[in-house]
């Protein structure tokens, strides 16, 4: 049987790749994909916990996380399209209107 720690390490690795992408990419679409990556990493650890602790609540949480991820993607892309319409760019380092 695969130990639970392996799943946690895998989840941590995927989460950190997501953090790296979120902090370093210029394209805002890839930044959104990194957020989805982080949510998926959390889902992996929740399902692993749910299996090893023999408790269903982790998988209930996963369903809610997927719901929120879908809502977040829809809102996020609406914001990206509005931004692209006004600024004609998807690069985060060119969006500096709020800089004081």
């Amino acid at each position, binding site marked *: 049987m695969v130990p639970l720690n392996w799943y946690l390490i895998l989840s941590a690795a995927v989460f950190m790749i997501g953090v790296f992408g979120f902090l370093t990419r210029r394209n805002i679409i890839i930044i959104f994909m990194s957020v989805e990556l982080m949510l998926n990493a959390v889902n992996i650890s929740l399902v692993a916990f*749910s299996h090893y602790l023999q408790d269903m609540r982790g998988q209930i949480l996963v369903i809610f996380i997927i719901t929120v991820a879908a809502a977040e993607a829809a809102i996020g892309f609406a914001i990206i399209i509005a931004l692209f319409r006004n600024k004609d760019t998807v690069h985060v380092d060119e969006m500096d209107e709020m800089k004081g």
Partner: protein
Amino acid sequence: MLPELFFGYYASAIVIFSLLVVTRSNPVHSIMWMLLLFFHIAGLYLFLNAEFIAAIQVIVYAGAILVLFLFVVLLLNLREELKVKKFIGSWPAGLFIAAALLVIILSVVKSFVPGPAGKYSIEFIKQETHTKALGTLLYTDYLFPFEIASLVLLVAIIGAIVLAKRKKGN
């Protein structure tokens, strides 16, 4: 031996695909790697006896969210995207922060002690079937959060339409 091999394949595939998602300069390639990544995560869920979650993963993530990504990428200009640098100037700082977080989490994982096991053992789920066990819990103990989730989706629909709508003046 076989479960470890199976897990090893899925874990290495997931890590490699997520690295490819983050480092490709063409967003369409990133999305294609992400599709493979989501299927492998669904395989891992099947390995963990969570078949309903695996189905949801394929339908919602691979079927709905990725198609949304693809639509938005096709709306934007890809030609100049391939010419500019893909990382911001201060990317070593981001790499350092991610590596430091990884070290912190890995040092904590060792001292994790699992709590007492619940009643949803493999035999119980096999007898009850997974979808039924999940649905019973979702529609009894978690009915109120479920309603809130539907409200979140309603807000997302309305918000997306309002935000993306073209103003009459322009």
